[in-house]
């Protein structure tokens, strides 16, 4: 009997190992046929299972697409003007990607970053959450390699300590909050209600916006939290409705909970203007849960249908993927990260991290695929966040899809 049990266990373990062995082969550089140089290895931290997976997964696919385009030397016109139409690879070297999962767990993010460095990565792009990047950037600092957190909005990422080698591309929450402050002021909103979820990052984002809006003279009349996993947000809507704010601002990190709020806010907050952070337009889940009640909600997106560069990247990506309906703005900023790295490595002429970082710090008016038409980013030694307010594109939900909110003029 006992030996039977042992054999069952041995069998189970053996089959598990067989399953494991089938996973984890690393792909060779795509689109690199004919490129002879040593591959330039770029590490990507992804989240396949945690809270960031809903934008990380598409982000990784976009980075793969961008690397392939670089290897092929095929670029939209805006960037081709910079690189030349047939500039293949990074100074003739193919980009090779290595990917590590961190499950959005900050402790694993450090290990993932080290594993990437061990695999020869000369730069790292993070697609997981801000918390994960904040932890992983320590490795970039130690190893002296550039790290680009292209999708993260936390202002703390580029704040010292350990921020010498890390860059962000998209506007961080401090910048967006400043835009909102003057924007709401101009619209005459005096009171605001915050709706967040129970994740630590949502709390941090809320605090940042709250400080900015209060600094601009607004009064916060309610700050509600929707616990992750809730099946109901009636009480939160009731409290917001009772506080009668001039505007509702949703600062969730978790998409379903944000959707839940809009679902229940549909009737009782129908006439109150509702704005969300750039998180609102990221995930389909928000709209799926809220249904038609989402219509009328507005948000600061980073993607404009009027931006030809954006459209071209999005369409190319959709073709390569066989049609992806909803492109998150985070994916556009990941494309930009790859282009930025190509530029910096080429002008540095070496793989040495400090030199490459210096080159990134020297980049001015670099055309990017996100933001309003013609939007560019600029870095400096003091400013590792290249964004400006022109990245922000106000959008409104109509028929459960976002369109540019033409009547909203946000400060530039």
């Amino acid at each position, binding site marked *: 009997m006992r030996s039977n049990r042992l054999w069952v266990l041995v069998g189970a373990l053996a089959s598990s190992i067989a399953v494991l062995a089938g996973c984890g082969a690393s792909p060779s550089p795509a689109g690199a046929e004919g490129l002879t140089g040593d591959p330039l290895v770029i590490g990507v931290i992804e989240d396949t299972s945690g809270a960031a997976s809903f934008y990380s997964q598409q982000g990784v696919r976009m980075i793969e697409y961008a690397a392939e385009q670089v290897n092929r030397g095929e670029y939209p016109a805006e960037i081709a003007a910079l690189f030349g139409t047939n500039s293949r690879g990074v100074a003739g070297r193919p980009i090779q990607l290595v990917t590590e999962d961190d499950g959005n767990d900050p402790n694993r993010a450090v290990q993932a970053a080290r594993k990437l460095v061990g695999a020869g990565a000369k730069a790292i792009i993070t697609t997981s959450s801000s918390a994960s990047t904040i932890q992983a950037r320590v490795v970039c600092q130690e190893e002296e390699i550039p790290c680009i957190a292209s999708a993260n909005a936390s202002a703390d990422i580029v704040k010292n300590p350990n921020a010498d080698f890390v860059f962000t591309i998209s506007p961080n929450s401090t910048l967006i909050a400043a835009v909102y402050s003057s924007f709401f002021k101009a619209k005459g909103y005096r009171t605001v209600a915050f709706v967040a979820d129970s994740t630590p990052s949502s709390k941090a984002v809320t605090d940042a916006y709250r400080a900015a809006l209060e600094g601009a003279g607004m009064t916060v009349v309610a700050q509600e939290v929707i616990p992750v996993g809730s099946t109901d947000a*009636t009480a939160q809507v*009731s*409290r917001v409705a009772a506080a009668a704010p001039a505007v509702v601002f949703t600062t969730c990190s978790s998409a379903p909970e944000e959707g839940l709020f809009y679902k229940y806010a549909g009737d009782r907050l129908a006439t109150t203007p509702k704005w969300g952070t750039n998180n609102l337009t990221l995930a389909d889940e928000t709209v799926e849960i809220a249904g038609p009640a989402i219509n009328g909600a507005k948000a600061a997106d980073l993607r404009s249908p009027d931006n030809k560069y954006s459209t071209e990247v999005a369409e190319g990506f959709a073709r390569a993927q066989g049609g992806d309906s909803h492109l998150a703005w985070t994916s556009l900023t990941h494309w930009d990260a790859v282009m930025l790295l190509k530029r910096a490595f080429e002008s540095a002429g070496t793989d040495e991290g400090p030199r490459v970082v210096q080159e990134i710090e020297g980049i001015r008016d670099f055309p990017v695929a996100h933001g309003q038409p013609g939007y560019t980013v600029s870095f400096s030694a003091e400013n590792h966040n290249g964004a400006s307010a022109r990245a922000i594109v106000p959008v409104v939900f109509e028929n459960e899809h976002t369109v540019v909110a033409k009547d909203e003029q946000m400060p530039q």
Partner: protein
Amino acid sequence: MAIHWIDALSAVRVGLMYALLALAYFLFARTTGTINFAIGGYAMVAGLLYGSVVTRVGVPPVLALVAAVVVATALGSLTEALVIRPIAARHRDEFVVVLAIAALLFVLQQLAGMLFGRRAVVARPLTDSAFTVAGQTVGVHDVITIVLSLAVVVLVGLWVARGRSGRMTRAIGDNEDAARALGIPVQRIRMLTASTAGGIAGLAGALAAPQAGLTIQSGVTLSIVGFIALVIGGTGTAYAPLVGGIVLSVLEAGASLIFGSASRDYLMLAAVLLVFAIRPEGLFSTRVRTT
């Protein structure tokens, strides 16, 4: 602050979901003596299954609901047959069973992650139709949820109180050896209650799926709220879980309205410690079951 009737309706809907989960705990514990902390896991699997097949495969919602309940029923009986029975046969320590059930919940969570993905699954309701009462939209799905849940609670209550096999569950819970001596088919009744408990949890999960983005983490959350509802209600009668579920939901909604939901976790802890301190047997009980 005036309490809106829609607040009350939501509290009842959520309370009934808690009640179904607590009822599943109740049935499972009645004959096996085990607080099955994997109950929320069944609900999570059922909810994800319902959401996935409706949204991704295009199965009609009613069919998906039935499938979800069937799968959860199977999970309940498998738990009894493959986990609890073999362990209870060898160990007298309750804590080994607790560990095994924690491992089971973890396994269900990871299995669901493999099958349905780790992103939130948003399910379509049984029907999209809704009607308007006094300016408020009420989904037909919500009404179905309330009616169906109440019906299940009442039917199970009647079964336990009046039904032949239902009354046997009582005998087994009170004294297994005596029940065996009386010729009660102990194993069969156990299997019956375990699978019924699974099915009820599955129903709760599938009905709740369109209300939120269920993720594999929802299993633990659902297990916790169901257990708390059971603790509040007690195990005295089959209707105790109903009362426990409604009381928990009303407390939660009331506390959210008064203090805001930011304090929810603290209030949960306080409520549970309070119940354990002053009425460890729950609101309804025939016997004390604390230690």
